[in-house]
Each structure stands twice: as C-alpha cells, then as structure tokens.
C-alpha cells in the first residue's frame, strides 16, 4: 500500500500528519517513510532517524567535446529548456537548467556530447525506530525537484506500507510524488486559502484517477465551506484535528502530534482502516 500525503496549500500540517501516521502504524506494520518534499524535507525533525546511508543524487548533464563539436546547433534546437546554447562558434551549457533528458546527445551528429552527473541533491536513508526512513534533499539554490523525486520513487519497496510526504502545491513535483500511489491524503485547513488550493490539488489528483480523502487540520478555525465542497465533490473528510496550542508548541520543538497527544495514535489507526476500505472499494 502506497499513501501519498499531499496538500494544495503549504503549511497546513502535511508533515505533522505524515509523520504521525507513520509512527502510529509502525507498531504493527512495516512502514517506509519517503520524504519526497525535497525542497523542504522536514519529516526527519519529527522522526529523528539514525542515518545509515548518504549519497549524492543528480541529473546527467551534457559535457561537450570541443574537438569534435562543429557548432551545428542541433543540440540547442533540441533542448526544450535552453540549457545548451550554440551561437557564433561558441557553445554554453547551463547545468542548473538541464533536465537530463539526453536529447542533445541523441541529436549530436558528431558524437561530441558525453553525459556526466551533476549533483543537485542528497539522498539519506536510515531507521527511525522500526520505520524505514528515506529522504531526498535538494541542494540550496537548485531549481528542479522533480527529477530527484523521480529517482527516489524508483527506490520504493514493493511490499509494506509506504508513506510519501509530497511537496505542497499541484505542480509537476507534486504530480511526480503522488503518481502511482494507491491513495492520496490531502491535508488542508478550512480557510479560504486552504480551500482554494485544495480544489487545485483535488483537480490534479482526479486526473491521475487515484482515490483521495481529506484531513482537516485546525478544523475549528475558518469556515464550513470545506465540508460543503467535500460533500459536493464526494470526497470524504477522514479526520479532523482542532487547533491546539500544545500541538503547535510540540511542532515548534520537533515533537510529533502523536507524542504530544498519544490518544491520537488510535485515531490514525482508524484513519488507516478508512483508507484501506476506500482503496479496496476502488479496486472492486
């Protein structure tokens, strides 16, 4: 089972929910926590894993052999992202714009392009109690999370329960994190901003045809419009968490929700049961 925890709006409590879900289920399940929010991977703050493996991740960028290049410009024409430029017998490569698609190498008729890894992120793996922990962490200033998320998702285990912390929003990085999962848990808050961005995320998840449910965080603030929308769209609100000062205080010092209020562990187990039945409903 693969569950993606996503949100339209940032700052709604996605990481609180994903880490608390992982901690609550890890007592009787094999849980893999994949932090794919590579621009701000904060799950480790709450799970406090012991890191046992760390390596560089990156994308393959072109290195041009100037002895072979005849400056025909085919590579620049092929590049969708203007990461390689040719004009007046000069050629320039912008590693940070490259998506590592190899198109430039494919079209080079004099075989002047070799691809070499340009490191843009760090991969970390470890254990947080009996939770298997993985995160991708984009280097500061790197603009492209999506290729890194794709590489991390290639490492997803086939068995066990996988919880993916997705980037917020609804752009390509969120799609990459969410796609091919069995269920998407959308964390929101019942404010106008929260609802606005939730709608965008819902529309995105619909296109991927993955069953979804909503967690309303700080559920006693804002308006009731969220519930009206959820009802109209036939998306279940699976859990409601009120605004509690002690949860916010715990959050600010890296203490997970389920350690601040241990009774929530049971609620997260109930949440998982609901997810399981929604997933099997979809399969039928």
């Amino acid at each position, binding site marked *: 089972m693969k569950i993606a925890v996503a949100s339209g709006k940032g700052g709604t409590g996605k990481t609180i929910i994903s880490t608390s879900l992982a901690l609550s289920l890890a007592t009787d399940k094999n849980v893999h926590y994949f932090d794919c929010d590579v621009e701000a991977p904060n799950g480790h703050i709450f799970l406090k894993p012991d890191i046992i493996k760390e390596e560089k991740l990156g994308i393959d960028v072109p290195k041009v052999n100037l002895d072979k290049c005849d400056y025909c410009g085919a590579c*620049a024409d092929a*590049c*969708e*992202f*203007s*990461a390689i*430029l*040719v*004009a*007046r017998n*000069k050629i*320039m490569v*912008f590693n940070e*714009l490259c998506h590592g698609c190899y198109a430039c190498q494919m079209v080079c008729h004099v075989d002047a392009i070799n691809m070499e890894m340009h490191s843009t992120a760090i991969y970390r793996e470890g254990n947080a109690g009996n939770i298997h922990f993985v995160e991708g962490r984009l280097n500061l200033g790197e*603009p492209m999370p999506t290729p890194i998320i794709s590489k991390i998702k290639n490492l997803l285990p086939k068995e066990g329960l996988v919880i993916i912390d997705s980037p917020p929003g609804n752009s390509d990085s969120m799609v990459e994190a969410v796609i091919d999962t069995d269920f998407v848990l959308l964390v929101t808050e019942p404010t106008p901003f929260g609802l606005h961005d939730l709608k965008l995320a819902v529309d995105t998840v619909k296109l991927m045809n993955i069953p979804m449910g909503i967690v309303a965080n700080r559920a006693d603030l804002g308006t009731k419009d969220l519930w009206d929308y959820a009802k109209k769209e036939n998306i279940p609100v699976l859990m409601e968490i009120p605004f509690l000062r002690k949860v916010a205080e715990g959050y600010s010092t890296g203490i997970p929700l389920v350690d601040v209020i241990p009774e929530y562990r049971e609620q997260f187990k109930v949440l998982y049961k609901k997810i399981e039945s929604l997933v099997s409903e979809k399969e039928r």
Partner: protein
Amino acid sequence: MKIGIPANSNNLDAKVDSRYARSQYIIFVDSETLEFEAVNNKNMNSQQGAGTGMSQDLIKGGADIIISQNVGPKAWEVLKEFGIKVYKAVDGMSIKEALEAQKNGKLEEITSATEEGHHH
C-alpha cells in the same frame, strides 16, 4: 550596427519591454538605416530557460548590441560570454526613443544582471 530589443509590439513605436525574455516580440534594427525586423519571441511562454534562450536568439539574430530594461543573471552570463554590450532603456521608452538615446550616449551600459532569476 544591428541592435536587438525586446519589444511589446512589432514596430518602432513599440515600447522596450520591461521583461527581457518574456517580451512578445524581438526587434532587430539597423541603427543607421532604421530598417528593422520584428520576430515573435518564442521564449515568451517557456517554462524554463527563457533568459538563456532569449540571449541565444538575440545573438543568433545577429545583434551586435542589445537595448533592454532588465537582464536576468543567466541571460547576462550568456551575453557576457559572447561580449555583447547591453544598454539600459528607461521604463516607458519606445524603440525609436531608445535608439535615439543610445545613439546620443544617453543610455547607461548594463554591467551586471539587473534582477534575480525567476525560478520558483
């Protein structure tokens, strides 16, 4: 001398666009005869790499110098590498006014990127 200019329309009464790489048109104009060519800027809606693409298109289009209001960091890196000088147009200037001002030495030369990149 051929001057390349990002423009908001396809004639010499157009304004020098405030955006370097996201202008609708690129105008190439001969500073002596004022003969010009306006081409659609295909970088306008690029998801990424608009700045470097724009610099490439200006260079490939034969621009000896560029007049623009702004140049981002990567776009600037390309222009610097190719030794293309950039002169800063004042906001609201038409292409004609900018050409005249450049000719009379009234436009300041840009010597570093004028703004941050637009990567999210």
